[in-house]
């Protein structure tokens, strides 16, 4: 053992101590450069907010764009005013309010910036801009705010708002900070990643007076902001606005689809709201008001309201009946009125006539043949087999499914299964007589307006559909077209049903919507509503050959389907195909909105 074994380590320790204390002395005491850098000549890390993606309609009209708004921050230690009155005036606050704000900011920190005033409009900012120079210790950050020039399509577009704690904690990419904006519903939410872009960073130097004096290191360290992607929608904003106009004062929704692609042409829900009220300074107040409204204007009925389909469901029954071969196109039978309430008279019916007159008793009989095909001698088991087979057919029409739509949280509706009735009545304890309401689209069946529009599109195409979609292009790039979905139901069956639908409009329940050049085919529903007046429903497409538009309408508490729903659908189809409407009398009828009191 020679000498102190720890010597080398003690020498190292000593050297490091000298190194650290002299380096600290240099940084903190000797060299005043860093002090001034920190206190006065601040390098600010300024976040550059990407401009959120602009949204266009199918004809390149701008539906959503950005307007700047301004947030103001205060640093209490630096805050001083030459002219208090002009300051108070600029922010339209009272003196005591200012004192409170300063006190609150200072209690957080005298050195750190606190938010002082949020979301000043660009207009107001321009007015006070020249005075800002005199306000020491006040800094502003501009950020883009959503603006909706058409005040239309509110539900589908959705809205953006500041992130809340949930948004931040569920964000695994750690992108969002307090006060960032995020899409909260509709397309704004579902295409958030595309629309938002990525924040940039700019390093700026501020001089002694707090004025910007240039960029740090000539801007080499800045992160370039990545602006959001542009979206192009399949919506025709003119059609959309026309439908919204027709829906004014009513409750309900209309969905129009281009059957050749599944692209949505219009999706309207009424009552609606001006999307601009959910953007900007009064967001929370306005949002609360919309929430409290008993008519629920913020609720997107086109995607989330569920109704029984009513008589339009007879089309599906007819198609299943033909495909299952329980009825053939020439069969004629006598129908009395003994089974179920009916507005159609008794008489000799074939399937075509039953659709045109919407005979409830005919479809009661048809549905019984579908359910009880004598596959088992036990009528309970037979009903069960029949129902399961039937509901598989119904699901082929896209009912009970969210159709993989671009906007999530849409309702799937409800197709009752045998398990459902097992729970309700007990296993083996229900048969046809318990479920006959399904024959005319009532009972437990629930569908959404967009599902019915898709159904209209299936008939228009005579047997196939594309999943409905609303966003067609991202940054000019077409989103890959989705696949044709065939129902495996014979095309001739569809042709037969279409002929009947043409008659429904020509001289049946929807004759109010007839127009020779339009060649509208459709079917009305008068949906029984235990809570008030019946709902008025209609599905249809036009023209009969080479259809351009498939449409579904539900107008709540508006009575007969042949009135409100058929008229609105007919007008909307005319408007879309011809670019204008000639039938002013029908428009007036719809806008007037007295669908109940009139009697025929």
């Amino acid at each position, binding site marked *: 053992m020679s000498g102190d074994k720890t010597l080398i380590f*003690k020498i190292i320790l000593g050297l490091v101590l000298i190194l650290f204390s002299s380096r600290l002395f240099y940084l903190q005491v000797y060299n005043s450069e860093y002090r001034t850098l920190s206190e006065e000549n601040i390098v600010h890390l300024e976040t550059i907010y990407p401009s959120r993606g602009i949204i266009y309609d199918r004809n390149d009209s701008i539906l959503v764009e950005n307007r700047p708004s301004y947030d103001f921050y205060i640093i209490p230690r630096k805050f001083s005013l030459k002219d208090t009155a002009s300051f108070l005036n600029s922010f339209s606050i009272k003196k005591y309010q200012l004192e409170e704000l300063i006190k609150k900011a200072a209690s957080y920190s005298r050195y750190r910036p606190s938010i002082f005033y949020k979301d000043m409009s660009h207009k107001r900012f321009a007015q006070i801009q020249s005075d800002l120079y005199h306000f020491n210790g006040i800094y502003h950050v501009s950020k883009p705010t959503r603006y909706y020039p058409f005040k239309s399509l509110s539900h589908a577009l959705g809205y953006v708002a500041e992130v809340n704690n949930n948004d931040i904690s569920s964000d695994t990419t750690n992108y969002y900070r307090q006060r960032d904006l995020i899409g909260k519903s509709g397309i704004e939410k579902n295409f958030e990643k595309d629309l938002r872009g990525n924040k940039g960073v700019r390093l700026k130097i501020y001089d002694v007076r707090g004025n910007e004096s240039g960029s740090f290191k000539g801007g080499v360290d800045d992160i370039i902001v990545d602006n959001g992607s542009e979206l192009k929608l399949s919506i025709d904003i003119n059609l959309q606005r026309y439908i919204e106009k027709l829906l004014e004062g009513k409750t309900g929704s209309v969905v129009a689809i281009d059957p050749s692609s599944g692209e949505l042409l219009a999706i309207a829900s009424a009552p609606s709201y001006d999307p601009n009220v959910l953007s900007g300074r009064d967001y929370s107040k306005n949002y609360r008001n919309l929430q409290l409204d008993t008519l629920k204007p913020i609720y997107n009925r086109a995607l989330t309201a569920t109704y029984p389909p009513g008589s339009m469901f007879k089309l599906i029954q007819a198609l299943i009946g033909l495909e299952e071969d329980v009825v053939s196109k020439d069969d004629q039978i006598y129908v009395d009125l003994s089974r179920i309430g009916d507005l159609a008279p008794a008489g000799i019916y074939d399937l075509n006539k039953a659709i045109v007159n919407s005979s409830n008793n005919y479809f009661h009989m048809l549905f019984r043949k579908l359910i009880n095909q004598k596959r088992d001698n036990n009528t309970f088991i037979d009903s069960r087999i029949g129902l399961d087979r039937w509901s598989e057919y119904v699901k082929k029409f896209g009912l009970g499914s969210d159709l993989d739509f671009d906007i999530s949280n849409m309702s799937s509706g409800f197709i009752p299964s045998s398990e459902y009735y097992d729970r309700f009545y007990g296993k083996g304890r229900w048969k046809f007589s318990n479920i006959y309401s399904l024959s005319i689209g009532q009972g437990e069946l629930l569908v959404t307006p967009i599902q019915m529009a898709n159904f209209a599109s299936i008939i228009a195409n005579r047997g196939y559909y594309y999943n409905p979609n609303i966003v067609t292009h991202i940054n000019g790039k077409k989103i890959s077209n989705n696949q044709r979905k065939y129902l495996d139901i014979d095309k001739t069956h569809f042709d037969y049903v279409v002929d009947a639908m043409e008659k429904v409009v020509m001289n049946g329940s929807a004759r109010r919507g007839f127009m020779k050049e339009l060649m509208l085919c459709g079917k009305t529903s008068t949906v029984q509503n235990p809570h008030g007046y019946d709902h008025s429903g209609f599905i249809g497409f036009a023209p009969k050959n080479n259809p351009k538009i498939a449409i579904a309408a539900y107008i709540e508490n508006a009575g007969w389907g042949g009135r409100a729903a058929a008229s609105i659908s007919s007008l909307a189809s005319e408007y879309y195909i011809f670019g204008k409407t000639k039938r002013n009398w029908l428009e007036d009828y719809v806008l007037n909105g007295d669908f109940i009191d009139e009697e025929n």
Partner: protein
Amino acid sequence: MRKINISIFSNDFIITLCYIILVFFGFISIYSSQHSEDLPFLSLKNESFKQLIWILICLIIFFIIQILEYRFIFDLAVPLYFLSIVLLVLVLIFGQEVKSSISWFNFFGFKFQPSEFAKFSTALILAKVFDSSNLKVDSLKSLIKVSTLILVPFILILFQGDTGTALVYFSFFLVLLREGLSLKLFFIALSFVFIFMMGIILEKTILYTIFTILFLIIVGLSIKDYKRIINSSIFFVLVILVINGQDFLMNNVLKPHHKKRIESLINPNADPLGAGWNVTQSKIAIGSGSFLGKGYMEGSQTSFNFVPFQSTDFIFSVIGEEFGYFGSMIFIILYFIFLYRVLTLAENQKDKFARVFGYSVFSIIFFHFFINISMTLGLFPVVGIPLPFVSYGGSSLLSFSLLIFIFLKLNSFKPSLLSR
């Protein structure tokens, strides 16, 4: 009859006191860096609250270690070492990627970093190996034997992409310095590391030229000294191998993000908004503290998140800014008293196991302290290793505390050792 000594007062008073003050310093600094309008203290998102929970966990562990038997720690060395190797392998497969390095396990939201734990178990295995075989690092064979124990976890951690933590394993060579490693060999090894690093910045041809000239000068100066010519020839060949090996490693073994990491370690300007930005802001924060500091919770440089990773790797910038030169020096001197005390206590151990372990504790903590403060002061590239006891982070607080607690336990056991 052997007495189980569980009195806290039998522990070294200076180390215990320093430990408590350092942890306290850490907590209040994390609290200050986390202080914000929108974040309540009693929230699992608030790092200062989580740190408090970890401190309490450490307290419990302290008492558990107090009642452990000496033999138990001794016997645990081998299984713990193999356990940590297994964990290091598993984390490569099942680990969670955080900031592009895969070094974390995630158990129900609580994150665990095996590489922190491996430091502790490597220290134990070294102590055990030196103790049981009465080893001395004076031959190449023994050096290779000991180095293997150190380099296996080192390489595994390097594969995780956590270069900073991997570097810490070099601190074990300080222990070898005490246990017989010749100073000359140590510096030769150090110079190879240096050449390796140079190879990343400079062109290979430049390096070849420099070393060929150096070699020729040495040969020219020692014409008659054959031994020196042979030695320097061997050295020259090794240098060439290192330069080429570096190239091979960079291009064939390491992935692009590992490569970038090593490059930015050597040259922080390669990643100006990451590493370079941190250092600039850290220097401004510390510099603005002046002599007396801005006062607790009044540091302005955290606004707009000026210093990133402020609660973890750059925690010293909070101390520098808010307590000034005066407070920083108190903190630094406190740390030196602590390290000095660990060093002298380690040397005083009669038991070789305790001594080697003590030196490991000293080396690990010193290395972290030196690198961390250096990078905060802009003296060393940013490698992202924490300041022991002070930085936010459960795994790191736990592993450093474990090192100290075990060492205190070994130290307090000294009297009864005579009666073994």
